[in-house]
């Protein structure tokens, strides 16, 4: 059996065990959850270390046919595109489980849903079969809604639940329609991604069919990633979600849309994709500039973090739209880096909320004095968020900037402004309001996190720093597959047109 089956199986086993445990055995429930996610994380680390760089074929594969007539099989494996995501997902999953101490009511149900969600997330990124890709995604998505609705916080909880459910369901539905049409149109009779890819490479889809399918995938997956202007569900939804849920969704599950675009939409529908590149480049500026500016105005920390997380998606879209090796590799690096970062910032925000009972930044100030560790971690998260070298986000962002310059010079200038200046403004504003300045008297009793509470933050910070200082751990693995994707996505049937820079020309 593939280690991937264990990686996604352990949390599922944990969910089953939690379901069987009586609800007042809280210690047992928590231990089961922590243990299974820890094992899953260690296995993911081992797999990442053993992963062979330099080859594009998937590794650690396992294929079990399921519905042969339709070509559906349980098929897992990792290549350069998803090995980092699976690792990141497993690490964030463990950190989120650690952060679940804040849940005090109906713990049994919560941990059951959490472990199911984790298993779904890891399954979605490990699957090489489109059916299971989608199935696992839904398996992770539905618990998200329930968790926000039941354990969420804040006055707008119900509206937030409603909004996030509506948006994400529509997004997932659009993507599903696109995928089904793609399946039918290809005529390959298989949900196996690799085979489908081979088949379509040999018999490309007609341009009309591509033009029909691509918008479904772009906007379906785009909504899942909070592509501007379909982004308003994200800040509010994350702000209202319990901390572990926000960490998992913003960090990991959200990347599913990008992963789908990268893995399926761009390489399988190259002709249609080309017509949309300029539009993607414009929309991503909506994320980077517009949402960045919105973040500047936020008065509550969770809204600021939520908006900043939406803004960061813009860099990934820009990298994908530049459609060259450096840009695509950079986009995948940001996907991984942002996962760690989003989990870290939402975790810290949640910790501060638990300690003080508020998200209003003006209520805080000088918390560094009482909480040196949390304060320092907060400063580091803010620095990583505004693209400081040494953290993994910088590597990805700088690659995207270099890559996008030749195709979208004007968009690159704006993106640089958004990344270097706007990002710094709202991040430092948050640090100034939260950690620096005089300490209000009412927080004189606050204490710093104990050793166990520090664990998730240390793990996440460590991951950001390791990949930030030794980026080749990621880039060398991504490169062969990114090369393949770029080759497929730029091999158009129509006469090759350089992406015209409508409205963005030199």
């Amino acid at each position, binding site marked *: 059996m593939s280690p991937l089956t264990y990686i996604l199986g352990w949390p599922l086993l944990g969910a089953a065990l939690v379901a069987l445990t009586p609800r007042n055995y809280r210690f047992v429930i928590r231990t089961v959850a922590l243990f299974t996610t820890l094992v899953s994380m260690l296995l993911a680390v081992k797999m990442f270390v053993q992963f062979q760089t330099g080859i594009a074929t998937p590794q650690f594969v396992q294929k079990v046919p399921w519905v042969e007539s339709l070509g559906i099989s349980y098929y897992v494996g990792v290549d350069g595109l998803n090995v980092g995501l699976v690792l990141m997902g497993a690490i964030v999953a463990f950190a989120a489980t650690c952060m679940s101490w804040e849940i005090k009511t109906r713990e049994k149900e919560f941990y059951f849903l959490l472990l199911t969600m984790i298993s779904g997330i890891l399954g979605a990124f490990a699957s090489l079969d489109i059916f299971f890709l989608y199935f696992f995604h839904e398996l992770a998505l539905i618990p998200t809604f329930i968790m926000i609705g039941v354990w969420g916080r804040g006055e707008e909880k119900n509206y937030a639940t*409603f*909004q996030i459910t*509506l948006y994400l369901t529509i997004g997932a539905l659009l993507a599903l329609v696109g995928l089904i*049409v793609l399946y*039918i*149109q290809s005529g390959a009779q298989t949900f196996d991604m690799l085979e489908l890819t081979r088949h379509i490479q040999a018999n490309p889809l*007609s341009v*009309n*069919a591509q033009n*029909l399918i691509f918008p479904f995938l772009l906007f379906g997956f785009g909504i899942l990633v909070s592509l501007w*202007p379909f*982004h*308003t*569900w994200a800040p*509010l939804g994350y702000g209202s979600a319990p901390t572990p849920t926000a960490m998992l969704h913003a960090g990991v599950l959200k990347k599913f849309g990008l992963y789908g675009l990268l893995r399926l939409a761009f390489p399988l529908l190259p002709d249609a994709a080309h017509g949309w590149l300029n539009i993607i480049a414009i929309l991503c500026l909506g994320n980077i500039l*517009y*949402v960045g*500016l*919105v973040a*500047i*105005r*936020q008065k509550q920390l969770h809204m600021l973090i939520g908006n900043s997380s939406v803004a960061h998606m813009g860099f990934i879209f820009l990298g994908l739209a530049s459609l060259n*090796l*450096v840009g695509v*590799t950079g986009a995948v690096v940001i996907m991984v880096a942002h996962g760690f970062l989003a989990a870290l910032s939402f975790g810290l925000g949640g910790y501060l909320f638990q300690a003080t009972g508020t998200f209003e930044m003006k209520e805080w100030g*000088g918390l*560094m*004095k009482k909480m040196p560790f949390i304060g320092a971690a907060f400063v580091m998260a803010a620095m990583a968020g*505004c693209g*400081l*070298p*040494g953290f993994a986000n*910088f*590597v990805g962002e*700088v*690659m995207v*900037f*270099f*890559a996008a*310059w030749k195709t979208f010079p004007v968009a*690159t200038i704006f993106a*640089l*402004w958004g990344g*270097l*200046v706007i990002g*710094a*403004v709202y991040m*430092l*504003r948050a640090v*100034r309001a939260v*950690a*620096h*300045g*005089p*300490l209000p008297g009412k927080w004189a009793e606050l204490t710093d996190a104990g050793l166990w509470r520090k664990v998730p933050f240390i793990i996440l910070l460590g991951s950001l720093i390791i990949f930030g200082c030794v*980026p*080749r751990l990621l*880039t060398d693995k991504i*490169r062969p597959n*990114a090369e393949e994707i770029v080759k497929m996505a730029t091999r158009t049937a129509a006469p090759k047109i350089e992406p015209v820079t409508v409205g963005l020309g030199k």
Partner: protein
Amino acid sequence: MFGNPETLAWLILFLPLLSAVGITLFTQRQPKVSALISIGAVALSFVLSCALFASLPLDKGLHEIAFQWLSVGNLEVSIGARLDGLSLMMLLVVTGVGGIIHVYSYGYMHDDASFSRFFASMSLFTFSMLGIVLANNFLQMFVFWELVGVSSYLLIGFWYERASAADACKKAFITNRLGDFGFLLGIIMVWAAAGSLNFAQLEQRFASSPEVMGAMATVAGLLVFCGAMGKSAQFPLHVWLPDAMEGPTPVSALIHAATMVAAGVYMLCRVFFMLNAPALEIISWIGGFTALLAALIAVQQDDIKRILAYSTLSQLGYMIMAVGLGGPTAAMYHLSTHAFFKALLFLGAGSIIHALHHEQDIWKMGGLKEKMPVTFWTFILGTLALAGVPPLSGFFSKDEILAAAYHHNLFLFALAVIVAVLTTFYMFRLVFVALLGKARSQAVAHAHESPGVMKFPLLILAVPTVLAGFWSIDGLFNRQFGAETSAHASNWISQIFAPFNHAPAAALAGIGAVIFGFSLALTCYQNAESDPLPKKLGFLARAMRNRFYFDELYAGLIRITQEFLASIADFLDRWIVAGLLVRGTHGTTDIAGRALRLVQTGNLQTYAFLFAAGVALVLLIVLGK
């Protein structure tokens, strides 16, 4: 093992990083140990830098070592060390002056609760600065450039619980980011056009085909200069430096006198090959303007550290102007000597502030000559060197800049001489008011000389302040960048007179400026009770005192641009996108739900019909193309 230049260079670079990490992780609670680790690391780096300097034959081209950090497609980035005269001299300045300041800090910070954090940040800063100095490619320089930015953020905001310090560090970081925005854009342009980030390869490419950048040459050069504008605090990004004086005084000496602010000048010299004539012209004007502006502001400041801060700005303007006019030699020469005497002045100011229990207003000092003789006399030496009195080091380096201006641009030459007058004037204003005369406050009565650990750094720094003019530092840079000045004199007596032989007008103008400035200060401030200038100059003095209202102007600009846009975006997001559209959809869905409820008849046949119709519709769409 240690004879190998490769090992030496890596050790020099990574020792301070090890110290920063070690202190952060292990010795937070043992302040003395932390200080020893940090001081030891930078001292060892200095010793190794000396060894490296001695062992490398500098006239035989450059040595370059590197390992690959990132390699994807045509983007190749290494972390390396480029060893040539420029970087080796800078290594010595950074580790030498930096080391002395580390020792001094041990005394200055001794009763601070976060002693360990201070030394960890100092080590981090030293590491970042050495990374800039050794960088062999553009992106490495940018990486360490940003790290310098963040470590200065940590040091300026060291006393973060003070609102003023917390605001100052934020302002410094964001202002620097504005410059870095241009810098990175410039780097990307160079990479896109010339296909490399490595300095040596770029230099070759620019030499073999000067038109490689095409029409973008000037723009790219100026964008890269934006980075220097931020770090070296040139107009219009100069506003952060005076506020940065909120940090502890040793930090001001290290970052805002000797090293960080010099990084901009250093970087321009490093990439001098890519700057074309129009870009250099603009650079020299910005430098000259900054020099004048800052000198004028310095004349009316009352805070001892702010006077020195504006003086630093003004001297940096000199160096930037020199790069624009004559090339790197004069600029780097002045950078080196300035690092010595400005660090001395800052540490002297720190010694005074320390003795007066954190009093920084010069009108509350006075009469320190007898109380603090060592501080007094070394401060006088620093002042003389800064004013450019022969034969102190500042005279020679400033003279090279004046000579360069004299040869290339007479208007800037006149401007530079005016700045020299102002420099002497505000420095002797400081000396007459703060050091001489009678005691102006109670605090002075209890003042006494600082302890040895703070005194000896002053004495050590006084040596190069006096003598650095005879060490032919400029000769070292001349060898690398080609001689702008004539061949160097052989013995020290002829060295004193070399400036007068080479460009007598410049040398005489420099000395004239000193004499004129000194006599002005003497008439205005000898035994003065209060500042006579506001009455004499009226509005001009008020504008100078208020820094020509740049901070207010920028605050207004930010309000009407960024804040305005942000509030529009926020409004749209809150009321249009989230409000109308989404809540509107909510309403529509509600109506649709009511409508669809009519379809839910419970009748199986109706369902079957609707299902079949749906399938037919999908098939029609899919197949009927």
